[in-house]
């Protein structure tokens, strides 16, 4: 009986995992496949990938599927009970101005935020773990690329990531057998690549968690679980149940054939098949509970269906509730022994929250007008991307900002929708009537978009703490966010804008208005890219970090943070793949210590 309740849970588990997203899903998978008994607690409701509305079209939805505060990424988006505001679960912002605002995106459902992401899965490179050593800013991680690389390999093989090996600086290759072949680029991708190359900007195949072909169910299980025949058998069976991409429908709607990664399509099915995983949904964890020995002995949570507080017990507690939610749980876990919150002797819990620097520009490309009918659904974008290409110039101090960004590109004859034909006056002179219909046909599919995704350097003014007065509907004190960008991020955003304008110009394209060269205006508000990490950063020194190199809190031996909270820097590479790699690595460590009876 894998889905249990507060009443039907077992008395004792080896490990409690709080959260069911990338970090929680990977932790449960790794622990259960090796025999540990795990209880997973998810704050939101149960969710199955079979709920996906993949092929449904806008005219069947309210408001033609438009984004609303109830469904911020559109009616059919897989995320339910989620967004930048969640009913009954407020948070406090110290500023409403764009420059100082932080928006906190949450998903209260099984699979958490893995139900909404771009599936972009880039490895951090060697520089990304040692940024302080490289330029004197931010913090080094206590681990390097070589420590994480074997886990990137494993995650890529398990999840199914497409991509290629290009051997570019700080853009690691994967060993043979890790990556699936990348999808064919669209016309717009190829035109962008051709013109960007003339500017010295490389466009290479992207990496995404989408099965471009069936997984190697004969080879991969033995590589991932050597000596563990049962795990191999379970994984092989589950890999056979995942279908390759259907080359249709946006991944954000979820995937009922399990061709893309959500925790519920990849991690949870095999973990449940082991019989070692119990899951309680609608379980909102309030605090980690402590034994008299000062070690964690479980968690206290609110059963959202009854509103009652419940307790669960385990030898080890893993928080993977998302960077800020895990920090909130620690800060709310106050006791005589830990008056500033648990694992917070450094005072660093909640500190150094980092999002990704985001800025975007779109342009209209006459060369792409009036193309013949083409099915360009593909694998839902990101066939090509631009990795950061100016490492040398940056290190030489020529750019005025210290860290890089990559470029995500978009275009193609995608499914028409509410935005089609809107805002064309700058091209049409305000046509209406038959001329307007011809204009829409002409311009449909001729737009390209560029989104910069850059590294933010951790700073002292971007953090969260417990608000002294506001509580959520369960009575749990909520977070208050402080946010500031530095010139490094603002200048980086301005550089993005200029670069995108240059590429559009090189394509013979048009801009509706000039690019925004004021970085403060070009940068998207904090939290809006939904890549927030930090808050429980790992380090080599207990005085200045919350966790050690094993995601283990310095203060509490059997308490681990397996989400993005442990990131000591936030490279331009999207964080999910690294969250999974670190969660696998930390879970291996937990297993070995459980076996040695150290935990």
């Amino acid at each position: 009986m894998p889905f249990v309740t507060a009443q039907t849970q077992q008395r004792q588990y080896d490990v409690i995992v709080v959260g069911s997203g990338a970090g929680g899903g990977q932790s449960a998978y790794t622990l259960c496949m090796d025999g540990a008994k795990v209880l997973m607690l998810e704050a939101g409701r149960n969710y199955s990938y079979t709920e996906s509305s993949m092929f449904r079209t806008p005219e069947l939805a309210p408001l033609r599927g438009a984004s609303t505060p109830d469904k911020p990424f559109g009616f059919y988006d897989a995320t339910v009970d989620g967004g930048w505001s969640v009913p009954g679960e407020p948070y406090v912002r110290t500023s409403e101005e764009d420059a100082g605002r932080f928006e906190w995106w949450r998903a209260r459902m099984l699979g958490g935020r893995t139900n909404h992401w771009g599936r972009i899965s880039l490895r951090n490179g060697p520089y990304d773990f040692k940024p302080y050593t490289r330029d004197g800013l931010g913090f080094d991680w206590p681990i390097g690329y070589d420590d994480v690389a074997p886990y990137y390999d494993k995650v890529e093989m398990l999840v199914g990531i497409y991509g290629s090996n290009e051997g570019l600086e700080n853009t690691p290759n994967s060993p043979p057998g890790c990556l699936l072949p990348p999808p064919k680029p669209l016309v717009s991708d190829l035109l962008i690549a051709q013109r960007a190359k003339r500017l010295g900007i490389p466009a290479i195949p992207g990496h995404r968690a989408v099965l471009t072909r069936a997984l190697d169910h004969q080879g991969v299980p033995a590589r991932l679980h050597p000596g563990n025949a049962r795990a191999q058998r379970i994984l092989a069976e589950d890999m056979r149940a995942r279908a390759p991409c259907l080359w249709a429908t946006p991944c954000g709607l979820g995937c009922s054939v399990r061709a893309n990664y959500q925790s519920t399509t990849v991690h949870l099915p095999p973990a449940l098949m082991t019989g070692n995983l119990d899951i309680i949904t609608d379980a909102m964890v309030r605090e980690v509970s402590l034994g008299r020995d000062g070690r964690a002995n479980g968690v206290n949570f609110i059963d959202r269906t009854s509103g009652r507080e419940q307790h669960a017990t385990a030898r080890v507690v893993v928080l993977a509730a998302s960077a800020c939610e895990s920090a909130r749980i620690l800060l709310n876990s106050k006791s005589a022994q830990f008056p500033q919150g648990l694992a917070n002797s450094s005072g660093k819990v909640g500190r150094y929250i980092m999002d990704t620097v985001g800025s975007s520009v779109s342009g209209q490309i006459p060369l792409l007008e009036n193309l013949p009918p083409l099915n360009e659904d593909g694998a839902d974008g990101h066939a090509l991307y631009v990795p950061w290409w100016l490492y040398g110039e940056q290190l030489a101090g020529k750019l005025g900002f210290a860290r890089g960004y990559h470029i995500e590109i978009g275009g193609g004859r995608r499914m028409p929708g509410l935005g089609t034909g809107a805002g064309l006056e700058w091209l049409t002179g305000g046509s209406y009537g038959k001329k307007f219909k011809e204009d829409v046909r002409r311009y449909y599919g001729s737009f390209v978009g560029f989104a910069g995704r850059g590294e933010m350097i951790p700073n002292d003014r971007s953090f969260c703490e417990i608000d002294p007065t506001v509580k959520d509907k369960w009575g749990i004190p909520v977070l208050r966010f402080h946010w500031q960008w530095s010139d490094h991020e603002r200048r980086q955003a301005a550089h993005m804008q200029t670069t995108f304008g240059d590429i559009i110009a090189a394509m013979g394209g048009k801009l509706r208005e000039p690019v925004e060269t004021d970085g403060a205006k070009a940068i998207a508000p904090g939290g809006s890219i939904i890549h927030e990490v930090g808050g429980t950063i790992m380090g080599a020194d207990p005085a200045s970090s919350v966790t050690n190199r094993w995601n283990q809190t310095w203060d509490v031996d059997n308490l681990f943070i397996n989400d993005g909270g442990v990131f000591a820097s936030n490279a331009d590479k999207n964080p999910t793949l690294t969250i999974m790699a670190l969660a696998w690595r930390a879970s291996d460590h937990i297993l070995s210590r459980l076996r040695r009876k150290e935990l």
Partner: protein
Amino acid sequence: MDRRTTIKWVLAASATWPLLRAGHARAYSIPTPVGYGSDPDLSRTYLPGELWPLTLTATERQLAATLSDLIIPADERSPSASAAGVVDFIDEWISAPYPDCLIDRGIVLAGLVWLDEESARRAGSNFLGLERAMQTAICDDLCDATRAATSLREPARFFARYRDLTAGGFYSTPIGRTDLQYIGNVPRTTFDGPPLALLESLGLA
């Protein structure tokens, strides 16, 4: 989302309604102040009016249809906007309790009233009663906000927004997808990318 939140949104939206005057109080009243919630049934098909009551009167719907069809008339490839259900969509849109919709509610309701008033000023009739050429003359004065007379700036803003809603309502239907020769959203076993001949013609192969 609760009633209080919606009222806050209505007040914020009303600040963006310069065309609105006394007598347009309907714009402020939202019949159902809550939306479909954060966990709606995605597998159901929703018809306009099912989730929240619609707003437009029969006469306004006629006016809306006429304007939508001036923007997207039938041609040899596809039918007109109203034939594709655009009026139902616009009515659903301006009746919904969400911030963007509330802003458009004021713009559209006031804009429709303005059209009749302007028609009366120019020809002593409401918009529906005008000769086609006179209807087109009004649209010509509004269709490009950058060239519109200062006195017509707000009506031009209404026209631009109404054109966007008409286009969005039209192209998000099977009729609109066919018009644009969109051929995706079908499962396939392979994705072969663009044909070589096309890439060659664009200098990309």
